């Protein structure tokens, strides 16, 4: 019981210390420091410069991204067109005709001729 009350008393003492500290601070704190406004103006101006620098950087980066995006889009649509024309050749309707073309092709004739020559040699 005695221990608890001592604990409470120490707590109360701590609170008293903090309140007196606060009252002293309120009483002693000046309106502001000398030349505070001048330094604040300088700091805000400095921060504005930094912000402008970053703003410029971000705007430049945005422009570059837009330009790169446009180039990427041109390549993308170019590829789409190329793939479109290739896929037109390989549609199921054209596969049969492609095979017929292959049969008539010079490559097939040449290989058949080579085979015949070898057979004749044997």
């Amino acid at each position, binding site marked *: 019981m005695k221990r608890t009350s001592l604990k409470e008393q120490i*707590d109360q*003492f701590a609170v*008293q*210390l*903090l309140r007196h500290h*606060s009252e002293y*601070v309120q009483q002693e*704190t000046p*309106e502001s*420091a000398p030349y505070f406004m001048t330094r604040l103006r300088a700091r805000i101006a400095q921060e504005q410069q930094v912000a402008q620098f970053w703003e410029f950087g971000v705007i430049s980066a945005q422009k570059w991204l837009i330009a790169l995006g446009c180039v990427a889009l041109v390549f993308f649509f170019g590829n789409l067109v190329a793939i479109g024309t290739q896929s037109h050749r390989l549609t199921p309707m054209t596969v049969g005709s492609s095979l017929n073309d292959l049969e008539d092709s010079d490559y097939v004739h040449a290989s058949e001729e080579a085979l015949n020559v070898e057979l004749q040699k044997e």
Partner: protein
Amino acid sequence: MAKITTTLPLPELTELPDDRLVEMTLQGDNQAFENLVGRYSRRVFAIARHFFRQPETVEDIAQETFTKAYFALQSYQRGASLEYWLARIAVNNCYDELRRRKSRGELTVSDMTEDEVNWMDNKLAQVSVNRHIQIGERQIASEVTQKLLDKLSAEDRTILILLHAEEYSVAEIAKLIGWSEAKVKIRAFRARHAMRKLLQRLQLIEQRKERQAAASFAA
């Protein structure tokens, strides 16, 4: 802030409400912002002074608070208390600075001046008879409190100052620092415990010194 422009003469500016000055600042009237700084600089300095002793740190906190406020004025809700809004920025700046420092040395009596040691010795001896601190003792109480607070963690220190020095409620502190009310209560309990332990340790040191002095006197 480089170019100062104002639409109204100074005496008229001082009579305008905060919200009007905020609007004028947002329209580029820097004189209006300087007027706001003049209105609340004492409050911001007092908050920083509760946390730090060094005048340079106090001014740095005040500068940072007003700089942040200047760039964030757009987010200030018209009709709300500008003083509370600035206090919130200042408290968060102080808390961040404390966390950056993270200096928590062990408390030794040698940290205090001889006057402070004697005063604490006297006060701690009187704690059991519940004697109060006199008004004339405020300065020394403030110095001692700062040194005791230096030994606490950033969280404990912030909570104790806001609760007992700034006298904010738990709900207000929760809003100020962005913690839940439950966290504020738990932190406050821990902070009081830490402060009590510090004071008890000082009390024990003094009692030991007294016993040693008595023993040497008897010998």
